[in-house]
C-alpha cells in the first residue's frame, strides 16, 4: 500500500434535520481495498457519494492526490479538493453506484465506447480497454446483447466495467454484491481482487462483512455518522474482542448438555458466552486452547462424536454486534 491517495477530513453531511455524516475522518491509501461497514442506513452510500463529489458536504472537505503526484509526500502541494477539481476527480475516479448505470438499449461494447468517449479516450484505447474489461468481467460473449437483456450479475459487471473504462486510479463501489446470489458474489469479489491487483485503489461499501473481512485490506466502521474505527480486519477484531470462537459440530448434538457441563468451568476457562447456532455449538472464550481441551473431554464422556471443530477469532459481524450492543 502506498501513500494516502484520498483524505476525508471532518466531512459532515445532513439532509434536512437529519445528520447523516458527522465529522467523518478517513484516509485511503493508494492500492488498497478499503471497505466501509455499517448498519443499514448508517450513511455508507452518502459517504461514498460525498467522496466522489456528487454530494456537497456541509462541513469538511475531501482531498485527493493527483495521479502524477502520487509518489510525492508533500501534502500541501499534492492534494486537491474534490469539490474544486471536478474534472480531475472524474478522470481519476471511477464510480459504480448500487443501481447499475448504463444505457439499456445499447450493448456492452456501445456503452463502453460511449463512456470511453466521454473520458476523451482515443478510439484505440477505448477498443483495447473495452476488450480487456469485457474479458475481465466475463461478459465478452454477450457484448453485442442489449445491456437491458443481461442478467443481474452481468449488469453489475458491466456497470463496473463502465466505471473502469478510463482506467481510474480509484474505483468507488457502492455495495457491489448487493442483490447477487452467493456464487455471483464470489465471482464479484474475485473480480474486485483482480482489479485491485492491477493497481486500482478500491473504496467500497458492503453489507457482507464476511466478504469484507476476507477481501479488504482495511475497513472502517461507520456508526452514528462517524468512522469509529478503521484498520485491518484483524486490528479491529483484536481491538474490540480478545475472545476466540470454538465452533463445534457433533453427533448426536446434545449441545445443551455440553453447555451445562461447561458451565461449571466457565470462570476458569474464561468462557464468555456459549451459543447454539446453525446446528453448531459456539463457545466464546479467551482461552481457546484450554477450553477446547475441556470440550473434547466432555464430548468423550458424553459419547458425542466430533464432526467438525473450528477455532477462530470472532467475525467482523460479531464484533459489530458487540459494538452496537455496547453503544
Amino acid at each position: 500500500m502506498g501513500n494516502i491517495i484520498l483524505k476525508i477530513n471532518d466531512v459532515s453531511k445532513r439532509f434536512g434535520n437529519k445528520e447523516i455524516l458527522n465529522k467523518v475522518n478517513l484516509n485511503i491509501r493508494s492500492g488498497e481495498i478499503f471497505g466501509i461497514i455499517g448498519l443499514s442506513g448508517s450513511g455508507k452510500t452518502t459517504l461514498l457519494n460525498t467522496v466522489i463529489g456528487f454530494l456537497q458536504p456541509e462541513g469538511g472537505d475531501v482531498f485527493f492526490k493527483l495521479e502524477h503526484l502520487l509518489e510525492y509526500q508533500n501534502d500541501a502541494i499534492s492534494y486537491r479538493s474534490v469539490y474544486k477539481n471536478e474534472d480531475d476527480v472524474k478522470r481519476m475516479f471511477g464510480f459504480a453506484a448500487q443501481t447499475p448505470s448504463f444505457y439499456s438499449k445499447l450493448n456492452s461494447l456501445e456503452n463502453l465506447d460511449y463512456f470511453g468517449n466521454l473520458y476523451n479516450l482515443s478510439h484505440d484505447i477505448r477498443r483495447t480497454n473495452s476488450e480487456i474489461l469485457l474479458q475481465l468481467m466475463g461478459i465478452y460473449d454477450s457484448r453485442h446483447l442489449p445491456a437491458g437483456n443481461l442478467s443481474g450479475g452481468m449488469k453489475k459487471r458491466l456497470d463496473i466495467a463502465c466505471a473502469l473504462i478510463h482506467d481510474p486510479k480509484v474505483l468507488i463501489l457502492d455495495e457491489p454484491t448487493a442483490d447477487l446470489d452467493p456464487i455471483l458474489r464470489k465471482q464479484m469479489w474475485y473480480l474486485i481482487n483482480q482489479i485491485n491487483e492491477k493497481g486500482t485503489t478500491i473504496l467500497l461499501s458492503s453489507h457482507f462483512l464476511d466478504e469484507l473481512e476476507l477481501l479488504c485490506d482495511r475497513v472502517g466502521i461507520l456508526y452514528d455518522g462517524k468512522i469509529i474505527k478503521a484498520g485491518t480486519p484483524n486490528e479491529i477484531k483484536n481491538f474490540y474482542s480478545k475472545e476466540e470462537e470454538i465452533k463445534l459440530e457433533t453427533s448426536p448434538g446434545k449441545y445443551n448438555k455440553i453447555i451445562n457441563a461447561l458451565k461449571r468451568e466457565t470462570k476458569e476457562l474464561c468462557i464468555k458466552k456459549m451459543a447454539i447456532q446453525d446446528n453448531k455449538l459456539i463457545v466464546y472464550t479467551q482461552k481457546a486452547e484450554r477450553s477446547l481441551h475441556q470440550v473434547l473431554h466432555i464430548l468423550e464422556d458424553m459419547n458425542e462424536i466430533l464432526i467438525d471443530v473450528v477455532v477462530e477469532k470472532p467475525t467482523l459481524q460479531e464484533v459489530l454486534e458487540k459494538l452496537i450492543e455496547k453503544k
Partner: protein
Amino acid sequence: MKKIISIIKKNFKLIMRSRISALIILFGPLLIMVVVGLAFSGSGEIRINVGYVVPEVSNMTDSFVHLMNDKYNVKEYTDAKSCNEGIASGEVTLCVLFPHDFVIANNNTNEIVFTVDNSKINLFESVVDALEKSFNDKALMLTQGLTQELLDKLNDTQSSISNKTELILNLKNENKILREDTNVVSNEVGGLDLDFDYNNLKIDVLEDESDSLSDAFDTVKGVADDVIKESEDLINDLDDEIDDMNISSSDKNNLDDLLNESLTNILELKNNMNDTGEINTDDLQATISALKTTLRNVDQKFARATSARDTSVSKISNMDDKLNASLIKIMKIEETFQAIYSNIDATEVTNLESITKPITKRVDKIFTEDSQLNFYFPYLVILIIMFIGLLLASTLVVMEKTSRAHFRNFVTPTSDMTFIFGQYVTTLIIMVIQLVIVLSIFGFYFHRDVISNLATTTFILFLLITLFTWIGMIIGNIFNTEETSTLASISLGSILLFISDLIFPLERMPPLIAEIARTYNPFVLGTELLRKAMMHKRTISQSGVDLYIVLLYIIVVFVFVILSHKLMKRSYLLRWGGYVARRHLRMQKQSQEEKKLLKRYNNVPTDEYFITKDNKKLGNLVEMRNYIKALNDSEFKEYVNSEANVFADWVLDVLKNDELSIIMRKAKRKSGTMTCLQKGIKKYDKLQSKLTKKK
C-alpha cells in the same frame, strides 16, 4: 466535438432501437404531408350539408332549393326544430328556413333565416358566407328582374307622359271653352227674367168675369136655345111650307136638303151649344181654376226658377271657379308630368347592370394556384417544426434524465455545454431529415416550387428549428417525467397555435393580444418569415424586423437552456441526495421496526403467553400453529368465529404485529389461520436471518 458526436450517435441508436420512435420519426412527417396535402389540395370550396325547411312550396322556394342542391348536400326537414336537431347531431351544418308565402310582393319581407352552429368557429362564418353568397346571387337575379320591371315602367311612364301631353293641352283648351261657355251660360241664366207676380194677373177678377161670362153664356145659351128652337120650328115650318110650295121637285129637294142641312147644323149647333155650355162653363171654370192653380204653380215655379236661376248662377260661378281651379290643377299636372318626364329623362343611370351592380369588384390573386396547399404550407412546416421540436427535444432530455445512465454522465469529465449541444444537434438532425422528407414530397408530389429562394428558406428553417428545439429542451429540463414534459410541450404549442392566425384571424382578436401575437409569438413570426421567403421570394435582408426578433429569441432561449440545465443538474443531484437520504432514513426506520418486531417475538414475557382453553401456554407462532393443527373444527370455532379471533388478538396485542393480525382476521377457517401463521413464521425467520446477515 468528439464527445458531441458520440452523444449524437448514442441518441440515434437509442431512438432507432425503439422501433416505434423510428417509425414516427421517419414516417410521421410523411403521414402528415399526405394527410394534409390531400386535405388542403382542394380549391377551398366548402362542401357542406345543408338542411332546409319549406313551410309552403312555391316557385321561389323551388328555385332556391335547386340552387342549394347544385352546390351542397341538402336535406329537407319538416320544421325548424327538427332541423336544429340535425345541426346538433351533426347531420347538417346549417339550416335554411324559408318564409311562408315566399313571393315577391309589396308587403312580403321574405326573410330567409339561416340557423347555424356558431360553435364551429372555424367553419360557421365561411359556411354562412358561402351560402349567403349563393343566396345573394339569386337575390341579385331577382333584384335585376324587379329593377328591369321598374325601368320598363319608368320608360312606359315616360312614354305615356309624352303621349298624354296633347291630351293635357286638349284638356286645357276644353277647360277654357267650358269656362267661356260657363260664362255665357252664367250670363244667360243670370239674365233670365223670371219676374212673375201672380197677384198682378188678377185671376180673381178673371174668375169673377168667368162667372159673369158663365151667367152671360147661360143667358146667351138660353137665347140661343130659344133661337135654335125657333129656328127649328122655322125650319120645320119651312119644311112644311115647302111641300106646299109650287116649285119643282128638284127645287123642293134642294130646299129640303138645305133645310135638312140647316136643321142638321142647327141640331149640331144645339148640340154644340149644349156641349159648350156644359163644357165651356165648367171647363172654363175648371180651366180658370186650373189656370189659377197653374198660375199659382207657375208662380211658385217661377219663384223656384228664380231661386234656381240664382243658384245656378251661383253654381255656374262656382263651376267657373272650379274650372279655373281645375285648369290650375291641369297645369300642375302638366308641370308634374313635365317634371316627371324631366326627372326620368335626367336619370343618368338607366342601365340594369349599372343599377344592380353599381360597384363590381375583382379579386386579383397574387398567386394563381387553385390549391390551398401552397398557402397553408408555411403554416404546416412551422407547425411540424414547432410540435416536433418541442416534443422531441423535451422527450430526449427527459429520457436522458430518467435513464439509468444519466448518473454516469455526471461522473464523466464532460461539460454541460457538450451535453446540451449533443441533444440539440440530435434534434436538429432528426428535424432536418423530416423537413427534407416534407419538402421533397411537397415539391415532387404536389408539384410545388421549393427550390427557389432555397438559401433564405433554409436559413429561416434552421433558426426556427433551433428556437423550438431549445424551448423543448427547457421544458425537458424543467419537467421530470415524459408525461409532464409532453403535456407541457403540447400545451405550449397549442397556446402558440391558438394565438396565431391559423385558426382564428389575428385581426379578430383584441388588439393587445393581436399585437403581442404578431410581434412575439414565434409561431407567427416563423410563418411570416417562411411565407415571405417561399411565396414572395424575399431574401434574408428583406425579411424585416421579424428576423431580428427570432434571432433575439434564440439568444435569450439559449441562455435559459443553459440555466435550466444547470438547475436540472442541481435538482437531480438534490433528488439523488434526497433519494439517498430518504433511502437512508427509510432503511433506518425499517431496520428499527424490524428489530423491534423481532425482539418482541423472541422475548414474549411468560405472563403474556397465549393460554388455551385447556390451559396450555403458547409463546410463539410455531407453538400456536402446532396447537391449532391439533384442534378439530368445532374446537377451532371456540377461538375463531364471526365474533372474535383470539389468536389474531394475541398477535396484535402481544407480538405487536399489525400486519399479521390483519391477515389472520381475514381467515375464518383453521386452514386459513394456519397458512397465515406459517407465513408469519417464515417472515420472522427471514427477518432473523436478514438482520443477522446485515450485522
